[in-house]
């Protein structure tokens, strides 16, 4: 099937863009959650 590679490339690109974005957001989220825990712990003392 001609152009199959282009179709797959497009689908892969779509998936990759969303996945990369989601990944960066969840990393920030995790880091911020750690920071919140750390600060709350420091305040308790």
């Amino acid at each position, binding site marked *: 099937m*001609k*152009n199959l590679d282009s179709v797959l490339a497009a689908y892969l690109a779509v998936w990759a863009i969303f996945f990369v974005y989601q990944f960066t957001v969840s990393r920030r989220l995790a880091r911020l959650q750690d920071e919140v825990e750390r*600060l709350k712990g420091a305040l308790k003392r």
Partner: protein
Amino acid sequence: MATLSASASAQAGTPGHPHSAQLTETLLVALLLAVAGYCALFVAPTEATMGLIQRIFYFHVPSWWSAFVAFAIVLVSNLAYLRSRNPKWDWLGVSAAEVGVAFVTVGLVTGPIWAHPVWGIWWTWDARLTSAFVLWVLYVSYLLLRNLIEEPERRAVISAVFGIFAAVDIPLVYFSIWFFRTQHPQPVIGDGGSLDPTMGKVLLLCWAAMLGILVLLVRQRYRVEALRWDVDRLRLDAARNGNESGAR
């Protein structure tokens, strides 16, 4: 102190907030996406002229629609923030803007991938693609502007005003570029032609899937802003406590 711990657990997904709910939503959207993808590849009839490559259309077109939904949310958030000064509108605004940029990126990437096998060129200054490019730069500028202002309230106010200018500009951009192209025609990357009803249904299904992704991503990003807020508050409290205990 009490308020911020409440907000932290309510918004951050820390213990107290059902992670299971988030997981269900993610799985739902993943399922929707899988179904949409399957339909786009196998259920939709093959287009007469372009053949297989036309199936990119099922994600290329809804990504524009979803981007516009996202930017509409940005405009509403900007207006609401200026009126109420509630920081939550600012959080929603930046989240929707980032996700909107992601959707425009998808459109700008799938466009050339579609164009190349069909017309032999990667890019053409066709009206929709050019306008989308300006749209991308516009909202990337919005995000860059935010990064360059430190103080949270000033940042929210200023980016809200810029956001309104940008949103109002969008129809003008589209119209001016479209009209320019009618005077100076160029090859068009587009769907063209009428839509078979099955194709129409698959298109809407794919759009629904994309809207699901939109909601998920915006919510995630919103939580990041909410947590940033909590972190700032906690840091302020920590600094205040430090001063009180005479730790100078």
